[in-house]
């Protein structure tokens, strides 16, 4: 009975979303205040019912209700409780419900945060968000109902895929979706601006915090996914250019470009078409990702059970939303351009380069991801496009961009003399390149050209990011100008980029990987570490049995750590799973994975030493932290409307 209530809640949510998607938009065109006023209550109501449906599904999982088909396919009585909850979004139908919940949560946030916006504009924003909600709710109700029943109910469930039985499942999808879906907000702002026919620099100031917030979640979400793949999938890789990884990365690239383009639009009122197009593109890429994962059109480890009928529905949704926005763009964007001059050496110019290079990178990743589909559809054969292609191709726009990050940060608006720019930056650049070229040789004894370039660029970005804060701290005596929150945000965000580049370069260049076989009692050496295979034993888990090895790791005679990799067999799904043992360190990760028993007590093993790999995720977290700082800048506090009666007469200044 209760699952049917969940279904009913979804239908009610759809009804409210339909109101939210239509009436306020009509009201904005016809200037009917009462129609526009329906937006907020409709959005709030929609959130309530979507949340109710979501809670009903959670309830079904927590109570082992195997009469619900989705629960029986993804859970089991022996599944530990946190994973029962996470299993709610472990497969297609439930993760779609999570998508919709997060969209309605963002919409709710917009209803609260948009009170100081012009009424017609706010109504349009909520209306557009409503259209997206309608599309996704229809998709769920018509093709992907999570509350479908199983008669007769299963005795026990199929269990959650063992690969997903991990703490990361609890946080990675919600945070990733918060980012992915959150890009709908700047999208809605962009479409609302196009509908209104006007785009003021104020518009950019409204849109920026929402964009940065979504981007922040997306950054953390992608980093979590990468980290999870690293320790869970057994063999120590952290990015595979899998189509679904690319599907989350492209919105990130577009979102990064959008944040920077918004900066120019806010400050100078120009780059409006860029900003609008990037806002439309970022969310469209999110929707595209949703399409790629759920339609079965590409092969991916993330692909949910695919179904061409579902694929067709999402394609239609994508066509309406993206196609509609782009047609609106084609019709109206040209009327929004304004004059605003700048020179070759200026912040605008560097941000334009930034826009272009990020768009090139996004387009290159998109092209590579879709190329096998293009060839197959044209009957020209079947190829695969994987890491060898992407690793090469991605660097082509990104290395120049990384170098420019340091330069753009330090240039003034409108125009700057190249001499003063060079004067400012020559010392940190020189130091970065000097260290970048020499240190790899000193520490590792060898370095390729690409390694030296990568390390230099990474150090350069770090130096450039820290240049101003360090200068201001050192100049404390002579009336320093404090950095604003926004500037601190920029500092940290770019610092994060530099640290990421350092981690990615060093770990790719100096990763040591060996496959060997050993018997308990053996000792051998890997990259300066001495390993001893001490023991192999059987271990029981809550829903699995495992063989566990014990390895002692020493360096220069001193004990570093004891590692216990496991080979698990989950009771229900019975396929063997490797659980690698990792010794985490800022300087390097030590990674040991058990392979197969080879007879006579011998086991095959993979041992890896991965220098600076933690910097990859540290860099991402620092980037996200920078975003957080930027959002909390007081200039985004909205000015209360003059008409409203204030309890206090304070007005918050806008920058």
């Amino acid at each position, binding site marked *: 009975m209760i699952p049917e209530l969940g279904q009913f809640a979804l239908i009610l949510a759809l009804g409210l979303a339909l109101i939210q998607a239509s009436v306020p938009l009509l009201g904005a065109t016809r200037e009917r205040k009462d129609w526009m006023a329906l937006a907020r209550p409709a959005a709030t109501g929609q959130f309530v019912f979507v949340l109710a449906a979501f809670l009903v599904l959670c309830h079904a999982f927590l109570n082992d209700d195997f009469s619900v088909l989705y629960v029986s396919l993804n859970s089991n009585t022996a599944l530990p409780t946190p994973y029962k909850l996470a299993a709610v979004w472990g497969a297609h139908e439930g993760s779609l419900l999570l998508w919709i919940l997060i969209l309605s949560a963002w919409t709710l946030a917009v209803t609260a945060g948009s009170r100081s916006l012009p009424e017609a504009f706010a109504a349009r924003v909520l209306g557009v968000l409503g259209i997206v909600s309608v599309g996704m709710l229809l998709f769920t109700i018509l093709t992907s109902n999570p509350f479908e029943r199983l008669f007769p109910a299963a005795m026990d469930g199929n269990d959650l895929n063992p690969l997903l039985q991990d703490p990361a499942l609890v946080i990675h999808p919600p945070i990733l979706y918060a980012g992915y879906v959150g890009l709908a907000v700047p999208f809605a702002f962009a479409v609302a601006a196009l509908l209104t026919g006007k785009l003021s620099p104020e518009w950019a100031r409204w849109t920026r915090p929402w964009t940065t917030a979504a981007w922040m979640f997306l950054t953390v979400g992608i980093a979590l996914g990468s980290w999870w793949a690293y320790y869970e999938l057994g*063999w120590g890789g952290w990015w595979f250019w899998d189509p679904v990884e690319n599907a989350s990365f492209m919105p990130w690239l577009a979102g990064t470009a959008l944040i920077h383009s918004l900066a120019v639009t806010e400050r100078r009122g120009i780059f409006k078409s860029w900003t609008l197009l990037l806002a439309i593109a970022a969310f469209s890429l999110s929707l595209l990702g949703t399409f790629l994962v759920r339609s079965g059109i590409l092969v991916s480890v993330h692909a949910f059970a695919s179904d061409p009928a579902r694929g067709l529905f999402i394609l239609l949704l994508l066509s309406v939303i993206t196609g509609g926005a782009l047609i609106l763009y084609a019709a109206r964007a040209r009327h929004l351009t304004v004059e605003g001059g700048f020179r070759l050496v200026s912040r605008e110019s560097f941000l334009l380069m930034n826009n272009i290079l990020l768009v090139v990178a996004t387009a290159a990743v998109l092209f590579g991801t879709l190329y096998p589909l293009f060839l197959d559809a044209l009957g020209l054969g079947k190829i*695969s496009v*994987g*890491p060898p*292609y992407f690793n090469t191709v991605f660097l082509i726009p990104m290395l120049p961009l990384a170098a420019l990050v340091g330069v753009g940060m330090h240039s003034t608006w409108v125009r700057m003399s190249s001499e003063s720019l060079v004067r400012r930056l020559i010392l940190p650049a020189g130091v970065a390149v000097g260290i970048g070229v020499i240190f790899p040789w000193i520490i590792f004894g060898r370095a390729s050209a690409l390694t030296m370039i990568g390390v230099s660029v990474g150090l350069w970005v770090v130096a450039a990011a820290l240049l101003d804060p360090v200068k201001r701290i050192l100049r404390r005596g002579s009336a320093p100008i404090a950095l604003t929150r926004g500037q601190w945000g920029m500092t940290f965000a770019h610092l994060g980029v530099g640290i990421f580049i350092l981690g990615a370069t060093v770990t790719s260049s100096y990763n040591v990987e060996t496959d060997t076989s050993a018997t308990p009692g053996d000792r051998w050496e890997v990259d300066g570490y001495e390993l001893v295979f001490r023991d192999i034993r059987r271990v029981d888990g809550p829903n699995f049995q495992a063989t566990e090895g014990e390895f002692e790791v020493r360096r220069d005679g001193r004990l570093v750590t004891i590692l216990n990799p496991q080979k698990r067999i989950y009771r229900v799904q019975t396929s063997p799973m490797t659980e690698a043992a990792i010794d985490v360190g800022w300087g390097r990760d030590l990674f040991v994975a058990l*392979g*197969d028993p080879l007879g006579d007590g011998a086991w095959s093993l993979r041992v890896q030493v991965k220098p600076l790999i933690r910097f990859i995720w540290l860099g991402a977290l620092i980037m996200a932290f920078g975003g957080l700082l930027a959002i909390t800048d007081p200039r985004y506090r909205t000015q209360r409307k003059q008409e409203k009666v204030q309890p206090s007469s304070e007005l918050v200044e806008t920058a």
Partner: protein
Amino acid sequence: MNRRSFIAFVWLLFVGTASAIDPEPPLEDPVIESAYRELINEVRCLVCQNQTIADSNAPLAADLRREIRRMMGEGASRAEVIDFLITRYGDFVLYRPPFQPTTWLLWGAPVLLLGIGAIVFARILRVRTKQPLEESNSLDEMTL
């Protein structure tokens, strides 16, 4: 259960499964061994199609690694091994797409896009350089 029957039990559990780890010791010549490692990280596993054969636990992946290892140990060049694979499985088996007429556009795309980007940049700059400049307020020069 005692140690021997435990090991036998474990061995039975894993019969018929493979792992991505090669049980044999590394090839004697480190240059060939590293060429081998590099190549198997570029060959797509046809069973679990989103992994390389270096990372895949599928039996076919283990068989292919064994074949490649043998061939390279006997002196086959990278090109010869690639040719061996493509003759049997087609271009799909390589994660590095071959450079041929159907993929010229793929390999050329990044440079082409960069070229288009450069042209776009030049045109926009030409327009903007002719437009009136705004007075720059040096105080908020660092405002992003």
